[in-house]
């Protein structure tokens, strides 16, 4: 088990190293921060001066090694766009907003998807199954930005139930969270449905039925409990989609989280912040999957050997 743990951690670290290299070279290839920072009338002297000030005149590999060395110490450099703050501070400050929104979205998607998936499985191949499937699929069949805007127009402008946008309390979070959750509902419903189908077919369920246990009890107590484990594995994937989903929704709803931050930083060519935010999510993703791997290995010893 210890070797397994060691090997997996080593893999994750190597992946991370490659990721730093990719992220660093991409962000530096994508142009010069000066292009976004300097005004249209910048003079050659001003360009040269700011280049030197930002340390962009050093060879690229020197910049990479410096970056790596500092990053290992937790120093990701100073933000170019949000002057006076380090990149880590900028990302750290935006994180709670993303986690709040992502958390609520996750909650909504579970609350909706689990019953929907169970229903679809129990009433397999009936109209109910079809309706549940279509509802679940709707969220994945519309561009999230458009769904978000439509929700905003109906529920904030026309009905006035919620604020249109901006950072704030629960009422501000509902619309963006629903737009975000709807997308996840599809995958989660499907997983729940197929897991339930498999379990409902198992011997012990048949046995329970034969014994005369009531159907509702069979479904919710015996089957669901066992099927619920499968969707849990989905959360590893979710960690990765959290940022991707938040980029669009946070932009539409003006929610100042890390997704909004990432896109603003790229447009402003703020390398330190771009690198920090991407690395942060990469670490999060690798960590989540490492934990899932370890959990699996604990449950099923055979995996350790593959």
């Amino acid at each position, binding site marked *: 088990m210890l070797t397994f743990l060691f090997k997996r951690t080593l893999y994750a670290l190597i992946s991370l190293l490659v990721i730093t290299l990719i992220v660093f070279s991409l962000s530096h290839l994508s142009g010069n921060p000066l*292009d976004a920072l*300097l005004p249209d*009338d910048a003079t050659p002297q001003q360009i040269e001066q700011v280049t030197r000030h930002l340390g962009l005149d050093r060879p690229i590999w020197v910049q990479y090694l410096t970056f790596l060395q500092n990053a290992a110490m937790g120093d990701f450099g100073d933000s170019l766009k949000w002057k006076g703050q380090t990149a880590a501070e900028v990302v750290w400050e935006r994180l709670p907003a993303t986690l709040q929104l992502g958390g609520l979205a996750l909650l909504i998607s579970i609350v909706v998807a689990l019953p929907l998936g169970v229903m679809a499985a129990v009433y397999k191949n009936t109209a109910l199954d079809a309706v549940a499937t279509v509802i679940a699929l709707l969220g994945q069949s519309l561009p999230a930005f458009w769904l978000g805007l439509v929700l905003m127009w109906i529920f*904030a402008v026309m009905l006035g139930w919620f604020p249109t946008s901006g950072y704030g*309390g629960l009422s501000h979070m509902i619309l963006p969270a629903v737009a975000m959750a709807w997308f996840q509902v599809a995958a989660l419903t499907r997983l729940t449905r197929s897991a339930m189908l498999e379990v409902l077919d198992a011997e012990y369920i048949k046995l329970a039925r034969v014994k005369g246990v009531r159907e509702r009890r069979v479904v919710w107590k015996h089957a669901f409990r066992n099927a619920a484990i499968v969707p849990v594995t989905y959360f590893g994937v979710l960690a990765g989609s959290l940022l991707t989903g938040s980029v669009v929704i946070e932009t539409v*709803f003006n929610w*100042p989280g890390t997704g*909004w931050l990432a896109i603003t930083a790229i*447009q402003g060519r703020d390398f330190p912040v771009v690198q920090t935010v991407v690395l942060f999510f990469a670490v999060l993703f690798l960590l989540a999957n490492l934990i899932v791997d370890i959990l699996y290995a604990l449950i099923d010893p055979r995996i350790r050997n593959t």
Partner: protein
Amino acid sequence: MKLTRIAGVSLAVLLGTTVLTSAQTITVAMSPPSVETNRYWNTPGDFNLGPAMQGLVGHDPVTGMYDNSGLAESWSHNDDFTEWTFTLHEGAEFHFGYGPVTAADVVHSHTLHTGEDSTLIGVAQLKDVAVEALDERTVKFTLPRPQIDFLFAHGGRGSLVIYSKAQYDAEGLEGYDTRPAGTGEFQFVARNIGQGLTFERVENHWSGRDAEVERLVLRFIGEPATALATLLSREADMAVLPRELQPDAINAGFEAIGSSNAANQTAMLFNGTFLTEGDDKLDPTLPWLDIRIREAINRAIDREAVIDVLYDGRASILPVFGMDPRHEGYREDLAEMFEEYYGYDPERAMALMAEAGYPQDFENPVIPILSSNLAGNPEFPTMAELMQVFLDEVGFQTEIVELDWAGLGALRRAREARLFHPMRNMPVKPSAVGIGNYYASSGRPNVNYEDPVIEELNTLYAASTDPQEREELAGRIFQQAFEQYAVAPLASLSAEIMVNPETVAGWTFPGVTSAGISHFNLIEPQ
């Protein structure tokens, strides 16, 4: 049981935070600035602390002319415009008890703005300038070369905003980051990254002109549809909207308030037209090096349709990009000849193309049209498509190239932006600045057109301190640009903001800042 109670309480708390609005608060929805910071010198010039911070020179809200509503009560210059002396208002003081505004604050601010981390627009006007405090209230700027437009560096889109030296000495830059003391009619309350800024009225302001609005909130919203939604749902009292969304607001009972003067000029540039002998950045295959092609493209554009499609019909045709009646060298005759030289005439365009041997005699006949997004000019992508429609109609081969504004910036900095691309002049800058930015090598690297005639005129113009001679030279430069079809000028328009008439009775602003709006103290609430 316990759990539900906690949930209920926290729900109430969360919901409660959203209903804290007072009647005297005016909220303005606008595009986010490119850099969110309290340090003006770290921005490219789009600064949102305008309600709280001031420069030395102010503007008349109606005419837009320089006046002493800034920190300087009066100023003077020597005969060759190399020495400028400003006298500060007596009694001008910083917020939060940082004391009176003195000449030392001006010297200190100048040092900050011209430091090596300065990314500020137009800061060249302040570089190598010696600033000297003659006494408490008098400060002298000694310039290395004459600058007739020196006041521009101190006005609404200026490059010098006055910060408190006392605050700096006490708290350093961190003091500015957390709560900068300004001198304006509003004082800083809070900055929420990605959300906006909050200001409150200064009671008994030193200028004697207290703002009418108690609290001012600037709300940054990048998505235009979202900005419209905040206005229609009455979360915002005012919103800066793209022109094409304005009818939606007007239909819902909102009203447009425009700047009292033209605030913006737009054009399509024939970038890479470097006609001075031996320019190594000249690409000889550029199709528009031939003046007949430049004229043909100009003739192919139906500018009235442009104004209808892009500006909801509220703009006027611009005769020369960079030229404006308020500034040096305005030539009425060019405006009058516009129809004759530039009027929409597809047949003439086709004749010119045939005469130039287009496309068979061109090694590279394709016109690359740039589509880009620039905050504040959301019409640029549509503009690119519209240009393509016009050019296709007369038989040009075109392609649309997409790049973000920073990407275009990189190409321009290398003088390799070989594109037919959109540009704006906002606010409309003094002629010398505009000529440098668009037509003369003095503005390198970001210049799109250069020719020997303008080079010669501009050398004389830059050196001249005689107002009459300058007027004449600037006019001749504009004439040359006009006759050479150096760019495709499109429209001249005012900055507009949509307001809710139930909460805002009126507002006058001259359109002299990068964001278009200013003079927040003149907002009249209902």
